[in-house]
């Protein structure tokens, strides 16, 4: 099934099996709904799949209030660029309530957001802001790359006792893959997944960029280079053990994501690797991410912004180059 169908399945099963689950967001109910929430209001009623006003702060605030009372609300922020509007509720309430009240209140909400990058919708409908939420203690941050992971991780997020930011990627909507339909199927948060084993270099990624990593690995194989593709799946919790284990073997790593490179998730991962594997790495960890520009409208320009399999391959080659060559390249 497609990613959209997998996410729909996760929501459908959660609604079916647990009365505590309900969905709220803009244009998520039928007949207007078209994404992962389509058909669910018809099946479960508009009481459980609620269209809301355009009020991102109150959508998340309301989810928090209901979660405090034992519900498992799944709030949608249509496009991740709008999450600033809800950021206060996420950061100052959802993330901190458990701590601030000594566990007396908690906010086990799931906030689904969609990244629109790659659609030509320009700078305010394209951002990948997961780094913001990694930096806020109390939140969990999830970004699936396959339909199977989408289903398994969304199920875990909804039933996780901590607030989760669940990042969907519009360019993955049509991705297909096998998905277990057993309602119990869930993927634990905090476990990275080896999407392709390898021995010469580790490509560390999550979300859409996993496709770039896999594409690069396929090409590199033909050149005799064996690249392992590690899909983080969740940024918080972060499977440091898996990351370090892989790179300890391969001694080379490229981190690649669609988020802006500067001060992005890759910075944390590279720092961890350099620290944990100092003296073990054969080359500095390469980091790829979006260029440090607002997203342009035209696709000819937009495609220059994001990583690609080719850029991953070039980065791998930098990690493989003899130190002398590299020194020249890096100035």
């Amino acid at each position, binding site marked *: 099934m497609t990613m959209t169908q997998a996410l729909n399945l996760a929501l459908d099963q959660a609604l079916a099996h647990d009365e505590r689950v309900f969905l709220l967001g803009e244009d998520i109910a039928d007949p207007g709904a078209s994404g992962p929430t389509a058909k669910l209001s018809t099946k479960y009623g508009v009481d459980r799949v609620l269209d809301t006003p355009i009020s991102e702060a*109150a959508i998340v605030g309301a*989810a928090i209030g209901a979660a405090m009372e034992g519900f498992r609300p799944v709030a949608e922020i249509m496009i991740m660029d709008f999450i600033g509007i809800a950021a206060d*509720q996420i950061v100052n*309430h959802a993330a901190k309530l458990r701590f601030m009240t000594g566990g007396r209140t908690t906010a086990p909400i799931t906030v689904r957001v969609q990244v629109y990058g790659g659609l030509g919708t320009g700078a305010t409908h394209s951002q990948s802001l997961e780094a913001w939420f990694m930096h806020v203690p109390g939140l969990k941050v999830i970004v699936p790359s396959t339909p199977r992971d989408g289903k398994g991780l969304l199920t875990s997020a909804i039933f996780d006792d*901590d607030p989760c930011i669940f990042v969907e990627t519009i360019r993955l909507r049509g991705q297909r893959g096998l998905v277990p339909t057993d309602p119990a199927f869930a993927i634990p948060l905090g476990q990275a997944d080896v999407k392709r084993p390898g021995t010469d270099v580790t490509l560390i990624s999550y979300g859409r960029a996993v496709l770039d990593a896999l594409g690069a690995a396929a090409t590199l194989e033909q050149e005799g280079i064996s690249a392992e593709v590690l899909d983080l799946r969740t940024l*918080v919790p972060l499977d440091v*053990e898996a990351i370090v284990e892989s790179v300890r073997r391969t001694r080379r790593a490229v981190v690649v994501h669609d988020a802006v490179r500067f001060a992005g998730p890759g910075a944390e991962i590279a720092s961890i690797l350099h620290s944990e594997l100092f003296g073990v790495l054969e080359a500095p960890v390469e980091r790829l991410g979006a260029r440090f520009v607002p997203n342009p409208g035209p696709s000819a320009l937009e495609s220059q912004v994001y990583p690609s399999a080719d850029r991953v391959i070039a980065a791998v080659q930098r990690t493989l180059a003899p130190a002398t060559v590299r020194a020249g390249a890096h100035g």
Partner: protein
Amino acid sequence: MTTDLTVDVSPEVQRRLYELMTLMKAADDRLSKGIASGELVCVYWPSRGQEAIAAAAGVCLREDDRLVTTYRGLHDLIGKGVPLVEIYGEMLGRQVGAARGKGGTMHIARPESGVMLSTGIVGSGPPVAVGLAMAARRLGLDRVTVASFGDGATNTGSFHEAANMAALWDLPVVLVCQNNQYGEMTPTEHTMKIAHVADRAAGYGMPGVRVDGNDPIALVVALTDAVERARSGGGPTLLECVTFRLRGHYFGDPMAYMPEGQLAAASAADPVPRFRARLLEAGNFGELDLDEIERASAAAVEEALATVLAAPATALDELDRDVYADPRNCPA
């Protein structure tokens, strides 16, 4: 609205109101004295002068009704039944605090008393109240959720979004605006053109009611009406309660920004002595009755404070607890 003490509320309710108001006042007085002398160390945003509102909520709400309040919540918390030990304990960083002292003054919650949130982010309470009310409806419970906030909070986008949702969905919410005529150091008339916060209600399609926030009887009447409407499915009300912050914004505020005479005038309208005088006038209670209530309130405060001061300070290992329910693989 003019109220008639003898018609509008029973003597039991009159007594309860006075008990609550004097308890709130005593709790504030004692804390203020302690901070001023250096005996107590904490941050504090005093509710002195706003007791009537919280006392009215105290008598109009059921224990299972929900309350969302703010940093300026001492009176609200007491009204809703949070034990003083938990409040003082939290403010002073002791294990007996509502959150074992780790959350601090601004973040006191006690679901057993229906207090689900105190927030330090102005305007951010009403959206959470919307969610609490949605939950009550889903649970099939006839609970009401009160969101308590200031006049300044009604200028925030969050207030607007939440008020609109509450009205749209006819949620069992009462939006209680404690209009104390200032937001920090800025008078309310410098931050909104309208004279009455209650006029904001029309834009959402809910009733807006303005009431003397220093008159507990008027407040009980107005709140009873709003709470009943909410409880019976009639949707939310915006209740503007006009009052004054007698100690300024934060404890120690020199209030130099207030025009000459304003504080004196407000003090003359102090709801606690005013209510005492009115009770005496109405005749159900004598001086001795009311003195006794005041003494009991003061004693309760002293006892709570003694318990708190005898309790251990918040344990250092609280830092490692409650960040996540499931912290596996989370950063530390």
